[in-house]
């Protein structure tokens, strides 16, 4: 295991340095100064916006304690979130394509349709799950009653 770990680490450092050398070779000084700002921004966006937002929404849902179907609600919200995240650049650049064949869709309409579909699917899943849970509770209850009678 130690040997494998050492090999991995050495290869990793070598490849990383090769990438760094490529950056230093091909980018201007000006670009090299600004790149770390963008790299830092990427970390901030993930670790201090997107993930806390996900955790926060999960926490609020738990607080509300909608019951055993909360997982379905959470999954639906996650799907709405991830598709919206990817749609943001498309929505921002709507109609600003380099030529008419780039970004030719009506992204606002398509995004609304997509979110509506996800929410609808989520609601359907919720109804099915509620019904199944109730039936399970019901049959458990009737088994209990039968057991009491005998």
């Amino acid at each position, binding site marked *: *295991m130690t040997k*494998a*770990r*050492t090999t*991995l680490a050495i*290869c*990793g*450092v070598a*490849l*990383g*340095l*090769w*990438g760094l050398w*490529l*950056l230093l070779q*091909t*980018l201007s000084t*000006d*670009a*090299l100064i*600004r*790149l770390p700002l*963008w*790299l*830092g921004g*990427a*970390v901030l966006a*993930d*670790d201090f916006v*997107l*993930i806390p937002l*996900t*955790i926060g929404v*999960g926490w609020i849902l*738990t607080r509300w304690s909608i019951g*055993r179907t*909360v*997982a379905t609600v*959470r*999954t639906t919200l996650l*799907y709405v979130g*991830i*598709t919206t995240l*990817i749609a943001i*650049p*498309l929505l921002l650049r709507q109609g*600003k*394509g*380099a*030529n*008419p*064949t*780039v*970004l*030719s*869709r009506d*992204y606002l309409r*398509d995004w609304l*349709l997509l979110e509506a579909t*996800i929410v609808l699917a989520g609601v359907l899943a919720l109804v099915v799950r509620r019904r199944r849970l109730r039936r399970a509770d019901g049959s458990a209850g009737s088994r209990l009653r039968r057991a009491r009678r005998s």
Partner: protein
Amino acid sequence: MRAPTEKAFSSPLHHPRVATAIGRCLGVAVVVCFLTGLFSHFQQSAPDWVYIPSRPASLYRVTQGLHVLSGIVAVPLLLAKLWTVYPKLFAKPPWPPSRKALSMVVERLSILVLVAALALELFIGFVNTLQWYPWPFPFRQTHYALAWIIVGALLVHLAVKLPLITTHWRKPAIERETADGTGLSRRGLFRTVAGAGALVGIASVGQSVPVLGPVAVLAPRKPGIGPQGLPVNRTARDAGVTTAGADWRFTIKGPEQLTYTLDELRDLPQSRSELPIACVEGWSQGARWEGIRIRDLLALCGAPADSRIRVVSMEKDGFYATSELPPQFAADPLTLLALRLNGGGLDLDHGFPARIIAPNRPGVLQTKWVHRLEVVS
């Protein structure tokens, strides 16, 4: 406000087993993305020792489609992975300074490099497919260099975590079900993440798989849109090319130099090729091309079929003005100097009067508005 501690995150889904399972999927996506990206890089600036075959004709279409698809699918996987290990961000390094504390700091730095590079790489990669460049550094060079840094940092990360990964590689005999307060079990979380990956994948892959075009609501490209039903990356206007008049001449320079008018080119034996336009941005679409085989033109000017050719366009821009056709592509019977597309004369935006179309090549090398071919060797 005080920063939370590692213990403040109560969900049992913040667990090494979950991190291992999601990390595995993310690792596969990163490796696929890296290898297909490397292939695309070699296509565009190949060192001499790299030989790229001209077949299978749709190879680049598949690899570049996979490149963009794996990148998009990696977005929910990366977020899920970061979510799983998020409490670790608040773990305090041991104090006073020790060997253990030092190794923890080094490990954190490697993770910082990995997360920063991967998150930025996925972002600029996706935004590039919109042909939007809001950042102050060159896209191609940065995207390529960051890819090596990501793979390097990933190997270091694997080296650090190897004992943890091997421990949690397999599913434990007793899986703790629905322990999360929100009722999300491990299995439920895996399903949710897989679903998110599938969702963004299906909503975007239609730009390379025309059958799914109608639902590609998260893709910048839609198949079938554009002159002659085919999308365009660089229009004639972008390239500074106006129409070619009656004085237009095509020249091929080999052992002999031959010059043709457009009508004379049309009188040469014509061949048909069914070949896709497959762009670095990941979109692709098949099309029917008609024109003269490059190998036939080579024979006319007395050069062998497997000659290296310099293709010269009427474009003014230095980067696109010329391209090189390696011998195996020149010799391939599918490679044409195309004059017609999908049953009609080439549209000006598709390279009228003549363009190169070859199998297994990125769109950026399918040079348009060609007026000169030079046999290099």
